[in-house]
């Protein structure tokens, strides 16, 4: 069974460097982001981030709400859901902005 996606790993790595160096986020914040992203990747069976569709995120939100915590055996708390989904949202937004910037840059660079 596939347990990682090399392309995603490199994208995630660049994002963590951005959080750490540009955003000056602390190490625990980076850990939280890493955990949230690995939860999402495991759900999508390590599908490429580049073929992301918003339905994946909607389905993941529903899926996460039904998951049970390993320690307590109870459903994940609202705080956990909120924290995970916020981190995921920020990541996807940054991906989107990046792709937008690249496509706009390409439009300007394109010869007439």
């Amino acid at each position, binding site marked *: 069974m596939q*347990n*990682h996606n*090399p392309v995603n*790993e*490199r994208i*995630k*790595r660049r994002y*963590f460097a951005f959080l750490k160096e540009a955003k000056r986020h602390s190490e625990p914040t980076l*850990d939280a982001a*890493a*955990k949230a*992203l*690995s939860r999402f990747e495991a759900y999508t069976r390590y599908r490429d981030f580049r073929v992301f569709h918003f339905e994946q995120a909607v389905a993941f939100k529903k899926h996460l709400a039904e998951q049970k915590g390993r320690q307590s055996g109870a459903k994940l708390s609202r705080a956990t859901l909120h924290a995970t989904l916020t981190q995921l949202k920020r990541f996807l937004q940054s991906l989107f902005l990046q792709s937008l910037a690249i496509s706009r840059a390409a439009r300007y660079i394109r010869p007439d």
Partner: protein
Amino acid sequence: MGKRQPNHRLVKIHRSYTVEEIADLFRLHKNTVRQWVKDGLATIDNKRPMLILGHVLAAFLQTRRSKNKQRCKPGELYCVRCRAPKPPAGDMAEYYPITEKFGNLIAICPDCDAIMNRRISLVKIDQIRGKMEISFPEAVQQIIDRASPTVNSDLRERSSDHAKSQSCQ
């Protein structure tokens, strides 16, 4: 230089690491980590920079640590020179108490004649014994052996008590 057995719990399982980052984490040389890759530590792909998944690294270090660990079975002591647990020569061992509850088993290696030690609890000695014959020290060890006993004793007082008790009878 880092520890001989790096602590796998320092690795973050949701992160990926380059060779340099692993070397920094464990205070090792980069070539040590590259040697691990040659020894079978999986990288995510063949591209550069080489990346290693955190959970893969943690599992790798854990198996390395447990692979080198050798437990002594009952009737065995660990020979440091041969680097293996072995039954003692002639299945004979000697118990040296350190406190009332525990002590050292001392025996000789059958192959290299080196002295082997094993720290044991006196309560568990029957579980550890196996086929070994364990001899216990017969008397309390003294610092110096003397031919003539010391005269500074309270024997005289005791003997007078003894005499009194006998006279009473």
